[in-house]
């Protein structure tokens, strides 16, 4: 197992947010996490890369326990790439400088080789001409593609995506999802939180449905979207289809 989460509990000052979460992710697997707003999806991702401390349970990466006092988060986080919902490129740096910062300062890579990798990746996501642009000169979709590339620069073993298209105008959603789909094709291990159901169907090896801080159902996308095991998943999908006629 690449990532194993066992009996994870998380509370924000007394308020239980995640309860008894068990989740295993194999190398190359694409997990899509869905669930109603406030059910704890973002919190789960944030626990995995140590942005939140957990109350009990365990998180392991390649069999190495992460939630212990001695964890070197800087080296762990290099293996776990994360892209957030809100735009998070560093505003004072150009796209290229955004991409080079962590490889040069954290991995001590020299500028030239990092640059070559950065240019190739930018080209791949259609941003070959944007390396000198500042974040505020980019559209939302371009920013998110650049943020994905910035995470990829660290050559992570797993990528976490937290509703990376939720803040985008509809016409830009596609260009970002296409990048993620291509990563899936290349065999990248990913945990993707999304509200885009069509995309979830297309990309997921497994769907994890969270409600009220618990994993209610884990299923294949085929079964989950047509004939889920649980009542709660059914209700959620009904409401969802009612909300967003497509």
């Amino acid at each position, binding site marked *: 197992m690449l990532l194993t989460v066992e009996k994870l509990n998380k509370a924000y000052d007394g308020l239980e947010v995640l309860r008894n979460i068990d989740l295993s992710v194999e190398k190359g697997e694409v997990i899509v996490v869905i669930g109603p707003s406030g059910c704890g999806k973002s919190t789960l991702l944030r626990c995995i890369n140590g942005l939140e401390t957990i109350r009990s349970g365990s998180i392991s990466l390649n069999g190495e326990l992460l939630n212990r006092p001695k964890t070197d988060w800087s080296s762990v*986080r290099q293996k776990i790439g994360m892209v957030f919902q809100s735009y998070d490129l560093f505003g*004072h740096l150009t796209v290229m400088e955004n991409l080079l910062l962590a490889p040069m300062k954290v991995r001590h890579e020299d500028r030239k080789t990092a640059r070559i990798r950065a240019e190739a990746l930018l080209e791949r996501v259609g941003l070959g001409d944007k390396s000198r*642009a*500042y974040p505020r000169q980019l559209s939302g979709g371009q920013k998110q593609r650049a943020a994905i590339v910035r995470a990829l620069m*660290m050559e992570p073993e797993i990528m976490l995506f937290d509703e990376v298209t939720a803040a985008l105008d509809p016409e830009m959603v596609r260009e970002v999802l296409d990048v993620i789909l291509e990563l899936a094709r290349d065999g990248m291990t990913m945990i993707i939180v999304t509200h885009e159901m069509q995309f979830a169907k297309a990309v997921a090896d497994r769907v994890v449905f969270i409600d009220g801080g618990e994993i209610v159902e884990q299923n294949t996308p085929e079964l989950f979207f047509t004939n889920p095991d649980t009542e709660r998943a059914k209700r959620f999908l009904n409401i969802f289809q009612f909300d967003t006629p497509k």
Partner: protein
Amino acid sequence: MEWGYIAKYTPMYATAALLTLRIAAVGILLSLVVGLFCAVVRHFKIPILNAIAVGYIELSRNTPLLVQLFLLYFGLPKIGIKLSGEACAVIGLTFLGGSYMAEAFRSGLVAVEKIQHESALSLGLTNGQTMRYVLMPQAAALAVPALTANVIFLIKETSVFSAVALADLMYVAKDLIGLHYNTDEALVLLVAFYIIILLPISLLASLLERRMRYAGFGGTA
């Protein structure tokens, strides 16, 4: 107005202005260092240091520079530490300015969104690297108006240096008035020299602010 008098004493004022500027420059530079340090300590809430920083900032902001200078110049010798007037002036100015600079940097840090911090961490940067490469550059740009206001405030505050027998502009003016009773001329020179010092700095400051606001980071916003 006696122009002869003004011509005669202008060099004396110029010397005093240079002294004022020198002390102000050193004091302001040290204030920036102290301020930066306190702002970082407070941002990360580093135990013990944070409490010390809070205490220092309160003390510094709530006592006049004159009182601080008196303590340094007349108080310290009583416990066996004797500092020159110039050292007192620099230390006093730094003690006062450090807290103002700290608050300016801190307001900048608060204005940088939390997501910038978290995404830097998620790339594997340490807290220190995040502060240095991601948060501080953006916080400093946001803090430019407050920082430049502090610079001008601190230069004005130097007028109390005469109290510790430093031959700064104020001291020279008072001295000359006492000697010759040419009050008008002495005061005209005093005002003129403060303007000569402050006007370019304040013009430079507003230029810097405008650049930060309109052209910062390749932007059009």
